[in-house]
C-alpha cells in the first residue's frame, strides 16, 4: 500500500492553505467596507454586490474568454452598486442600513436573474502563481498555488493602512467619517466623499465576488457566496476599522473554516458540526477578550450611524 497521505500534517497545512484560499473574498469585501465605513456610512449591501460581481465576472469571462476582463467588469458593476447606495443615502432621513439591506436583496435577485444562463458554461479561471516548486510534496505545492488577487489584497491592506494616515485623501475620508460638521466647516462635501467611498467599497467587494466565481471554488451558481459578504462586513467591526486588522481577521476566518474538513480528513470525525462553528466561536472569544468596560468600540468613525 503506497501511502501518499501526509497524515496529521494535513491539518496545519489545510489551515494554512485554507487561510489563503478562502480568505481572499473576505479581504476585499472587508477592505471595501472599511473605506465606506471610515467615511461614516455603512453599506450592508455588499453581499449583493459580491454575488453580482461573481456573476458579472463569470459571465464576462465566459463571453470574452478573459478572466481579467471579468474582474474589471465586476469592479465596474460593484462601483455602480456603491454609487446607487451612496446616492440614495445622501437624501435626508434615509437610513443607510435599510438601504443596504434593500441593495443586498436587489443585487442577489438581479444576479440570479441575469446569471441563469451562466450556471452551465465553464469559464476560464484566474491564473495562480506556483510558489511551491521548492517542495517535493504535492500537497505543499498545491497549498502554495496562490492566486495573484491574494497578493493584491495584502498589498492593498498595507496601502490603505498607510494612506488613511498619511495622504490627503485618507485624512479627508477620516474627517468626514468622524464629524460631518467639521468636514463641512473645512469646505469638504461629506455627501460627495461618502458617495465615492461607497463606490470604491462596492468595487472592491465585487473583486471578492470575481475571486469566488473565477478562482476558488471557481464556479457560478446561486449558492456561491453563502453569506460571505455579510460576514466580511462584520469582520470590519471585529478588525476595528483597521485595514491590516481586516487582512488578519480574513486569514483567521479562512483558516478556521478549513479546520472542519481537515480534521475529518485525518480521522477526527466526531462532532464536525461543532468544528464548522469554529470561526464564529473564535470571533466571540476574541470580541469578549478585547472588549473594554470603559471604552466603546475603539477606532469607530464618529459619524457612523452604528455608533451614534
Amino acid at each position, binding site marked *: *500500500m*503506497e*501511502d*501518499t*497521505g*501526509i*497524515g496529521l500534517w*494535513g491539518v496545519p*497545512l*489545510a489551515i494554512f*492553505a*485554507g487561510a489563503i*484560499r*478562502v480568505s481572499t473574498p473576505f479581504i476585499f469585501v472587508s477592505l471595501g467596507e472599511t473605506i465606506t465605513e471610515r467615511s461614516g456610512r455603512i453599506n450592508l449591501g455588499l453581499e449583493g454586490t459580491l454575488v453580482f460581481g461573481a456573476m458579472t465576472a463569470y459571465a464576462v469571462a465566459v463571453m470574452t474568454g478573459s478572466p481579467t476582463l471579468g474582474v474589471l467588469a465586476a469592479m465596474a458593476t460593484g462601483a455602480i452598486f456603491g454609487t446607487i447606495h451612496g446616492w440614495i443615502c445622501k437624501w435626508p432621513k434615509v437610513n443607510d442600513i435599510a438601504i443596504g439591506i434593500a441593495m443586498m436583496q436587489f443585487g442577489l435577485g438581479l444576479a*440570479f436573474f441575469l446569471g*441563469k444562463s451562466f*450556471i*452551465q458554461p*465553464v469559464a476560464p479561471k484566474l491564473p495562480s502563481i506556483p510558489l511551491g516548486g521548492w517542495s517535493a510534496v504535492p*500537497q505543499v505545492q*498545491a*497549498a502554495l498555488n496562490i492566486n495573484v488577487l491574494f497578493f493584491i489584497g495584502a498589498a492593498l491592506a498595507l496601502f490603505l493602512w498607510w494612506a488613511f494616515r498619511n495622504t490627503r485623501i485618507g485624512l479627508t475620508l477620516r474627517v468626514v467619517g468622524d464629524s460631518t460638521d467639521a468636514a463641512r466647516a473645512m469646505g469638504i462635501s461629506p455627501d460627495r466623499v461618502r458617495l465615492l467611498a461607497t463606490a470604491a467599497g462596492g468595487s472592491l467587494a465585487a473583486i471578492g465576488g470575481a475571486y*469566488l466565481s473565477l478562482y*476558488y*471554488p*471557481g*464556479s457560478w*451558481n*446561486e*449558492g*456561491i457566496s*453563502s453569506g*460571505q459578504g455579510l460576514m466580511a462586513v462584520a469582520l470590519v467591526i471585529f478588525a476595528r476599522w483597521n485595514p491590516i486588522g481586516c487582512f488578519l481577521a480574513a486569514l483567521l476566518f479562512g483558516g478556521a*473554516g*478549513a479546520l*472542519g*474538513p*481537515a480534521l*475529518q*480528513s*485525518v*480521522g477526527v*470525525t*466526531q*462532532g*464536525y*458540526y461543532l468544528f*464548522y462553528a469554529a470561526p464564529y466561536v473564535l470571533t466571540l472569544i476574541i470580541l469578549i477578550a478585547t472588549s473594554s468596560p470603559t471604552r466603546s468600540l475603539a477606532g469607530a468613525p464618529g459619524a457612523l450611524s452604528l455608533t451614534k
Partner: protein
Amino acid sequence: MTKLLPMNRRNFLQASAAGLAAGTVPGLFGSQAMAQTALTVGFIYVGPKDDYGYNQAHAEGAAVIKKMPGITLVEEENVPETVDVQKTMESMINLDGATLLFPTSFGYFDPHMLAMAAKYPKIQFRHCGGLWTEGKHPANTGSYFGYIGQGQYLNGIAAGYATKSKKIGFVAAKPIPQVVQNINSFLLGARSVDPTITCQVIFTGEWSLAVKEAEATNALIDQGADVVTCHVDSPKVVVETAAGRGAFVCGYHANQSALAKDKYLTGAEWAWGNVYTNFIKAAQSGGKLGNFVRGGLKDGFVKMSPLGPAVSAEGRKKFEATLAEIMSGKFSVFKGPIKDNKGNVVVTAGTAFAEDAIELESMGYLVEGVVGSTS
C-alpha cells in the same frame, strides 16, 4: 385556518380509514382532475434547476412530462426546506390549480409536505426520497426514489481499478440514510476490486456549500485520496476541484464528464423522466399513483455515464459484468457478513439485501473501511 384545520383532518382521517378510494368524497372544489387528462403538475426544487446536479436531474425529468398532452407544468426553484415550501405548495394548489405536486428535496417531506397533505387531502403529493410508511403517512402522499446505490457501487468498481494510493474519497452533505448508503456502496464496489481500499468521507453539513465542498475535496486529496466522488446537490465544484488537483472523479446525479474531461471515470445518474412519465400516465388514466415507488438501474430509474478513457480494459470488463448482473436483478450490494466501521456486525453472514430491501432505506452505519462518522 386554525378552525378549519381540525375539520379537514377529520374528513381526511375518515377518508383514509375507508382506504381512500381517491375522489370518493364529492368534489368540494369541483376538481376531479385526477380522472381527467388535463392536469396541472407542480415541481419544487431546492436549488437552481441547471446546477449540474440533483435539481437539474429532476428538472430534466419535468421537461420530459411537459411535452405530454394535457400537462401544465408549474415549477419553482430555490425553495428552502422551511415553511417557505409550504407557502409554495399552497400557492401552487390555490393559485395555479395544481393537483399533483412533486416536492423534490429531502427536507420537504417532514413536516412540510405532511402538513400540506393533511390540509389538502384531495391533492396528490409525491416526494422524492422520503420514507413513506403505510398507516403512518397520509394516503394522498407517497415517495419515489431510485436505487442509485447500485450506481455508486459501479462507481466504486471503476475507482477501485483507478486508485494507486488505495485511498478513495467521498464528499457528503448530510449523514442521512441515502447518503450513507451511497458512501457504503462506493467503498464496497472498490473493495470488490481490492479489499485493502479505504474510503475517507467528509460531511459538509449542507446540501450546497461551494467553498466548503472545495475545501473538503482539497483535504481528501491532501490525505492521499486519488479518486473522489460526492453526494451533494451540485457536484460541479467537487468535480472541477478534484480534476484540477489531478485526481480521478466519479460523477453523481447527472453527467459531469464535460467538467473533468479524461479524469472522469463514470458516474451514477438519475433518469427521472421515466419515473415522472409513469406517474403522469397513471394520474391521467385515473389509476393509482402508487405510494411507494422504487426502481434501480434495471427499471430505468438510474443510469451510468459512459466509461471514461482512464478506465482500464480489466476495469471495463468487471464493470460491465457487474452491470449485467444488476440488470438481471440477481445482484445485491449488501451481502453479509458486513461489519460497520466500529466493528459491529451489521449484516449477518448469509443475509443478502435485495436492492429494494426496506432495511437499506434506514441505513445509519458506515461499513468497515470507511473512515468517517455520521455524527
